[in-house]
């Protein structure tokens, strides 16, 4: 049996996005309290104006790389690359989510969502993911708890499989990196291994939790 995650129950009560409220509040309060102990209140005062200034510069210096990539992606989308990848993914998805083998609609939404994630189409990925959850819920026999395929789908979505992590590259560019894309191969290897770990853990826990 998997121990019930009390932390998770609290997270749900706080309500996902609402959690950021507490984190932001905590960060601000901790920084003030901490500066009293470390005697860095002058630095802290300067950080307030610096921080806001830095953020705007960051957004501006990220804009070039981000827009370049969303522009290229739009061409890929219009050329039908997205559908091609979706079709290629379907057999793999059937293998790791056998429960939805016969649920064609769910299968399509799941492949489309994973494709959007791989291409880094963040705005498209979430609605497709929500559609996939809706379709998976229709065949969910547990009704009030997610079945194994739903857990697997969410776990896959918490891993970040992305061909070109453009935000990371843009942030590196903004920080004056000589080679913003040099970390790409490491990111690919790491995210594939993380994804595989997630899939294996979900499989193991699903058997144990039955």
């Amino acid at each position, binding site marked *: 049996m998997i121990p019930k995650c009390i932390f998770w129950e609290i997270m749900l009560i706080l309500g996902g996005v609402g959690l*950021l409220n507490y984190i*932001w509040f905590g960060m601000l309060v901790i920084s003030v309290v901490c500066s009293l102990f470390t005697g860095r209140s002058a630095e802290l005062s300067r950080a307030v104006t610096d921080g806001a200034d830095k*953020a705007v510069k960051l*957004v501006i210096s990220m804009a070039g790389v981000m827009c*370049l990539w*969303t522009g290229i992606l739009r061409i890929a989308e219009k*050329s039908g690359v997205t559908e091609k990848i979706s079709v290629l993914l379907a057999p793999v998805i059937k293998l790791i989510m056998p429960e939805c083998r016969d649920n064609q609609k769910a299968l399509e939404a799941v492949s489309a969502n994973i494709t959007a994630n791989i291409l880094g189409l963040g705005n498209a990925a979430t609605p497709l993911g929500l559609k996939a959850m809706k379709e998976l819920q229709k065949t969910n026999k547990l009704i009030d708890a997610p079945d194994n395929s739903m857990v697997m789908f969410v*776990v896959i979505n*918490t891993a970040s499989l992305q061909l070109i992590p453009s935000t990371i590259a843009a942030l590196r560019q903004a920080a*004056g990196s000589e080679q913003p894309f040099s970390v790409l191969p490491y990111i690919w290897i790491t995210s594939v291994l993380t994804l595989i770990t997630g899939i294996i853990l979900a499989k193991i826990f699903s058997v144990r939790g039955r």
Partner: protein
Amino acid sequence: MFAVPAVIVLTVVIGAFKKVDLFGCFTEGAKEGIGSLISVAPSLIGLVLAVTMLEASGFFEILTGIMSPVCGAVGIPPEVLPLGLMRPVTGSGSFAMLSSILEKYGADSLIGRTASVMAGSTETTFYAITVYYVSVGLSKTRHTVPAALGADIIGMIIACAAVK
């Protein structure tokens, strides 16, 4: 990294082959990029502010000081630990944190590259779990959290090992 120009050329060639309005699509997509950047800008400003304040207050030095024995044992540089803690919870927060680390230690330093790989190879786990389950009205999550967080932790250790 030759992969990036290669992907761009490949995309454009496929697009030309499929008779797509190349430049029109590019500008349309780029416009969407500006739009999404503007929509995250306010939260990024708030979080960069908070991270900069935490940094100035000396909190990260205290945290890394406390955590360095634990981090050393699993091979994570203590300097990237704040990012690791932030990553599963908030996307903008972890990008703010990454930007602060890149600035402090240098984007091409070992710490800078490790932080980049960590941030790039994991997701906002808790946010994704909440959004997906809440959307279908499920409050039970079964083994989702242990599997997803377990993968995140192992992913972070892999990220540190990969860059070295």
